């Protein structure tokens, strides 16, 4: 099935070489910020996540288990392996199609853009588990929050499948008005543990 | 200071009043103004319509005419932008005329640039007791990046009330031959510009480019709005003694 032998590969590469022959070399100026000067990362992150109309709680670590318990009460939750036992009893095998929600932590969070990044590592479930249920509760440790996109990119491993999440699922396809909730979780709730 | 005036072919042929205003304004400010008679056209219409060879010929002609002047002043943002921004891209470095272009192009100034940056005046001693709104034409705004130079000059004119134009930065729809090649869109853009001008309640619409004013003014006049269009130079040249709109 491979088109390697169709000649397409060699032909395209040949066309490219002829097209750029003699073109000047390019220097890349990287004068943009690679570290972000933010006074209070947690505060900015919370504000920016709220801007997406997600629910945010900022709590001391000791208060997290009680808050989690309160939020998951009455919901059939997927609780992937790798989360602190104090938060919730592991329930990694709940069928995502019948689950009400999913509880995770994250790999890194970005203050400036209000973004949570999942890399399917411990406590983050599979891509399917964090996609199909309608409710996503994510606990972010204050130490996981970085200032801007460059710091996050530097921390992440490209070999892992990543999902960057900025607020609940949304569309702007109708008159360019943002509407929350299409195919991904319609409710995103974030606990920042300080 | 000895200044060459590049009047532009449109002003020369259709709007001589603008040229006369530039002459009287610059003389009032102590400049020795020269009009090199061999000048014709910067070639913008040809280049922008796809006739590069004719355009290059006109560009070479321009550089020959204006070689040797310290400063060249043009009462047109668009023609000044043509010379400064487009000429250097028109002729490859190293080929015939490229060196002359590199010589002359940086010395070409649009009128408000010349006043504010070179002569360093903002109050040119003008008097114009009317309600005026200003349209920053695209090539002045995004080509030459004139910024607030024209409005700084207008604000210093005695008696003049400057009212802001809504959506000022939007193109009026002239665009050279665009106006006849895409008449429907051009007219629709012109109509929206005119609506914004009317909303200001101004008596006079001012700009630093007569070609855009020809389009907006032509629409204003067809719609019998009673609003006059005036080139920036004409307002700045006006004094207590005269040059009434």
């Amino acid at each position: 099935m491979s088109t390697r032998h169709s000649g397409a590969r060699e032909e395209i590469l040949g066309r490219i070489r002829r097209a750029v022959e003699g073109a000047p070399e390019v220097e890349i100026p990287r004068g943009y910020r690679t570290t972000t000067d933010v006074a209070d990362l947690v505060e900015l992150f919370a504000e920016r996540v709220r801007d997406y109309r997600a629910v945010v709680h900022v709590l001391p670590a000791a208060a997290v288990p009680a808050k989690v318990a309160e939020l998951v009460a009455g919901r059939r939750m997927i609780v992937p392996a790798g989360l602190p036992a104090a938060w919730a009893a592991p329930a990694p095998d709940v069928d995502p199609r019948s689950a009400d929600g999913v509880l995770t932590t994250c790999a890194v969070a970005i203050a400036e853009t209000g973004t949570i990044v999942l890399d399917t590592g411990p406590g983050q479930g599979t891509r399917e588990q964090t996609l199909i249920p309608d409710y996503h509760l994510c606990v972010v440790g204050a130490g996981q929050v970085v200032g801007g996109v460059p710091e996050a990119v530097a921390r992440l491993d490209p070999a892992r499948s990543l999902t960057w999440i900025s607020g609940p699922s949304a569309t702007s396809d109708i008159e360019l008005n943002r509407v929350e909730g299409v195919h991904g979780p319609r409710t995103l709730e974030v606990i920042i543990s300080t | 200071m000895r200044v060459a005036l590049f009047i532009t072919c449109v002003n020369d042929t259709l709007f001589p009043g603008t040229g006369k205003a530039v002459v009287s304004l610059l003389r009032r400010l102590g400049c020795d103004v020269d009009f090199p008679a061999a000048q014709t056209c910067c070639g913008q219409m040809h280049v922008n319509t796809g006739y590069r060879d004719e355009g290059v010929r006109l560009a070479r002609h321009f550089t020959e005419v204006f070689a040797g002047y310290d400063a060249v002043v043009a009462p047109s943002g668009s023609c000044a932008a043509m010379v400064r921004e487009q000429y250097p891209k028109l002729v490859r470095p190293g080929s015939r005329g490229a060196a002359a272009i590199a010589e002359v192009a940086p010395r070409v100034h649009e009128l408000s640039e010349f006043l504010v940056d070179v002569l360093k005046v903002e109050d040119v001693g003008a008097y114009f007791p009317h309600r005026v709104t200003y349209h920053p034409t695209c090539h002045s705004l995004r080509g030459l990046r004139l910024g607030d130079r024209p409005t700084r000059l207008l604000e210093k004119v005695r008696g003049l009330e400057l009212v802001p134009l809504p959506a000022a930065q939007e193109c009026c729809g002239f665009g050279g031959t665009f106006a006849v090649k895409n008449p429907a869109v051009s007219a629709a853009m012109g109509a929206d510009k005119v609506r914004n001008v009317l909303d200001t309640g101004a008596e006079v619409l001012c700009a630093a480019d007569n070609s855009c004013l020809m389009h907006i003014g032509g629409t204003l006049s067809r719609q019998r709005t009673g609003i006059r269009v005036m080139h920036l130079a004409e307002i700045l040249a006006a004094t207590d003694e005269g040059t009434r709109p």
Partner: protein
Amino acid sequence: MSATFLGMPGDFPKNAARAVQDSQLRYNLRKATHTIRGKRAAVVDELPDWRELRAAGKAIKDETLRHLDRYLVQLEEAVTRAGGHVHWARDAAEANRVVAGLVKATGETEVVKVKSMATQEIGLNEALAAEGITAYETDLAELIVQLGDDFPSHILVPAIHRNRAEIREIFLDRMGDAPPGLTDEPAALAEAARLHLRERFLRSKVAVSGANFMIAETGTLVVLESEGNGRMCLTLPETLISVVGIEKLLPTWRDLEVFLQLLPRSSTGERMNPYTSTWTGSAEGQDFHLVLLDNGRTDVLADEVGRQALRCIRCSACLNVCPVYERAGGHAYGSVYPGPIGAILTPQLRGMSSELDASLPYASSLCGACYDVCPVAIDIPEVLVDLRAKAPHGAAERAGMRVAGWILDDQTRLAKAQRAAGRLRRLVPRRLPGPLSAWTDTRDLPEIPEESFRDWWEREG
């Protein structure tokens, strides 16, 4: 690029003239483009280093294009190492053949699709249909377009020409399972689409996507989206086929730090789009195929001025600020690439042999608003002017321009022409004949002066 997309038959001026008459369309476009303009400006102004990001974005893309051959080979190795399969397609037909073959090999007759410009460009859905395979668009706007038997009119928001009332009509008419009491509230419309597509996502075995970026060094593909339909397609099916233009490459993982800032802020006007997915080869156990598409791109690359169009990251900021797009709408451009980027890309990909394609470089007043907002600093006016020099010119226009050039070439000839005009000034009619009637249909002519400036100067300057 094949001419599979023929939204409208005429040339751009005629198409645009029709669109300008459509007041509903004008209203929809104006409202939508002005909304997004404001949002973009706010989130761009918020970053203190936008200029530096833009300069870096431009240079990274230029550097990639300069060594595109090397980076593509590097990408191929990385994808293959990660268990993926790489295919090369010289043109639309070849790409369609490859995709159809891959789908058939799975034994499936249905695929779900994530919005992708490349697959629209090659007419993949139609090609698959001819092979008995049904492609379901899952992006809300694409769904609206597909159900309405319509053509996309915007890169980011293909149904931008439709308002909520029209969308409701389309859903009620064509969706089959639309709730009978459906209102035109955007939330209700989105909910209807959610329910309509849910089962299909869970059932589908094959998905087709594009990609916003491919990372040469790691073999990673990146898709930015809002709704989650992308995540559904990228995650659930067993086979994933991504069709991506060869210019979508970035050399290093680190380069994402620039583009994940430039793209969301420029396109939806958000600090970050709701979802971005990255994956490398078949890391998740899927059968992954990458189809690298040329389809005219290498011709664009060969053009010194025009090649900058390949920097485009399809953010659509240039459409949203364009005064011509706002009034003409996307269909007038007769291509999946409308607006300013379409006006420079389509004629380069397709050539200028059709009346429509030859008229596209002129579909601009050269106001420069597109260049100002472009996150990778594509000088669209420069490319337009360059294309105009290559476009075919009508005989009458050519003759007129030649005469004008001849007169303007010499001061004496110009002075004579001015004096002749001054003498005939009273004879100029209020309405001009022929092509110049395009001016006087809506505008008065300026009065021709008795004396030119140069004659005045001669006399008393």
